């Protein structure tokens, strides 16, 4: 949740030796922290039930967008199966949440970890490909997941390995964490979880893996000749993004109570990638914007009585606009805008 962070600028040790560098790097975190706090305090009291639900969905979407954005913006990998991995996380959380009485934070971590493992399993063969081929392999994986989700369904409280009810039993829905039953409380819970996941990503970007990923994105040959195990680091990035997707899936099922295959279809993965491009793949702020585009825009159209499909058309136009004029997405445009404003203010101040 921070604006454009220079990846792996300096190791923490080097930063401590240079207070000014430390201050500059902390400004981004400070900004993100204030933003989180504002969101936590302001949104629940002013949003009605409809918008609160949309905001919860946007926070969750921002987490999966963060993973996809990290893969594309930092490592240069286009993954088109991020929503399938959200489905995997949701499946694990539903299965364990309905079948056991494990506390919710444990469910979150297990869902994230198992999804990371599944991601690695998909990633090992896929990472032999690069560029367009990698994107295609992940899209095919998304198609395969879609078929599996569609035919087996998601756990709904039954016994047996798939957790499905039989006959006329009532469907069970996923419980929320004890401390976050109401929508307002769950919204705050989701924001805190998102902040923790983003902090984990930031920790990666600022240190050794961040440097390795940046090198890989520019030149695999340079990375190799610096001793970077390119396959391992790409796999690591994929596992980290999958972990985020798994967490997002668990939050989603706790928020809504259940999951259906349409929510995590291959098509949704493509829409997510489009939103990442528009929001901006190079910063975590871009992920937040992508989450807002994905969930708040359709909600807005809903209140205006417009068809939700108009959003898809706007996404198409938006991508063309972004790719042609602003490769760093809306986050990049906002940063440029803020810099221009600052320059203007400084000039005014100098003249006064």
């Amino acid at each position, binding site marked *: 949740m921070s604006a454009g962070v*220079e*990846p*792996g*600028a*300096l*190791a923490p040790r*080097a930063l401590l030796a*240079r207070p000014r*560098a430390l201050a500059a790097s902390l400004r981004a975190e400070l900004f993100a922290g204030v933003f989180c706090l504002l969101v936590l305090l302001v949104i629940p009291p002013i949003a009605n039930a409809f918008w609160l639900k949309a905001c919860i969905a946007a926070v969750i979407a921002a987490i999966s967008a963060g993973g996809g954005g990290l893969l594309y913006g930092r490592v240069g990998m286009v993954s088109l199966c991020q929503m399938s991995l959200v489905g995997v996380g949701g499946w694990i959380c539903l299965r364990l949440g309905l079948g056991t009485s494990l506390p919710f934070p444990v469910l979150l971590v297990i869902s994230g970890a198992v999804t990371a493992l599944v991601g690695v399993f998909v990633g090992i063969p896929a990472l032999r490909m690069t560029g367009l081929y990698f994107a295609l392999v992940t899209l095919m994986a998304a198609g395969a997941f879609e078929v599996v989700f569609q035919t087996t369904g998601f756990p709904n409280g039954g016994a047996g390995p798939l957790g499905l009810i039989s006959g006329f039993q009532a469907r069970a829905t996923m419980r929320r964490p004890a401390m976050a039953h109401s929508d307002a409380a769950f919204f705050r819970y989701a924001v805190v979880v998102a902040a923790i996941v983003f902090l984990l990503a930031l920790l990666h970007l600022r240190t*050794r893996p961040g*440097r*390795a990923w*940046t*090198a890989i*994105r*520019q*030149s695999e*040959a*340079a*990375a*190799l*000749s*610096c*001793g*970077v*195990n*390119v396959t391992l680091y790409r796999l690591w990035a994929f596992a980290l993004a999958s972990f985020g997707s798994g967490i997002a899936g668990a939050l989603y099922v706790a928020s809504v109570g259940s999951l259906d295959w349409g929510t995590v279809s291959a098509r949704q993965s493509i829409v997510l990638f489009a939103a990442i491009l528009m929001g901006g793949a190079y910063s975590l702020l871009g992920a937040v914007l992508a989450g807002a585009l994905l969930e708040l825009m359709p909600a807005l159209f809903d209140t205006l009585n417009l068809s939700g499909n108009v959003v898809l058309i706007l996404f198409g136009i938006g991508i063309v606009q972004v790719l042609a004029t602003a490769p760093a997405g809306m986050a990049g445009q906002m940063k440029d805008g803020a810099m221009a404003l600052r320059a203007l203010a400084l000039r005014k101040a100098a003249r006064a």
Partner: protein
Amino acid sequence: MLEVDAVTVRFGGVRPLNAVALSFDRGTWGLIGPNGAGKTTFFNVLSGFVTPVSGTVSCFGDDLLAMSAHRRARWGMRRTFQQDQVIGELSVAGNIELALDHTRGRASAHGVEEVLDFVGLAELARTPGAKLNAMERRLIELARALAGSPRLVLLDEPAAGLSDSESVELGRLVAQVPERFGALVILIDHDMELVASTCEQTAVLDFGNVIASGRTGDVLRDPQVMQAYLGTEEAAA
């Protein structure tokens, strides 16, 4: 000590390297030859980007061909490329940290400050790689190759695109590397003055074959070398 024996590389019907046998003892070596002689392919074999169809490469007693490219880098094989590979989004210090991240025994290794001081660019530590000029890029690449515990440093046309005076400055630094960093250096360049002033010894490749190897002065006067590479006019000069 680097021993290369009977190394052959085949790309389809072409043999960029044909049973190459060379031995580099220590210090700074030049590797010269006309375009297409197989110099860069030779570096690619050493650094693990190209797998030879036959032959052996052993360096300080270790079998290099048995290691993957990134393992060779960790072992102490460092190389630069004809086109500079400074990572634009990382700071200068970040570029060097990148190499240090994957170094064994980091505590005793040559650190960021040391290598930046060596190339005289300590004040650029926080500058983004993308903002460097051509000479700074070449120097940062050299610094990055020396960070950690380098044992074999391969420099592929490090002076390409530099002015004469910059080239001299770079050569002066490269010549100090064996003593200061304890590494064997091999330098590919088309600039004969740079090679002559920097390298005590030189090997010459032509169409994938070794045609000479030994003290730089002797090699550059070798009639076969002059005919293949320098042209006979310069022999008269």
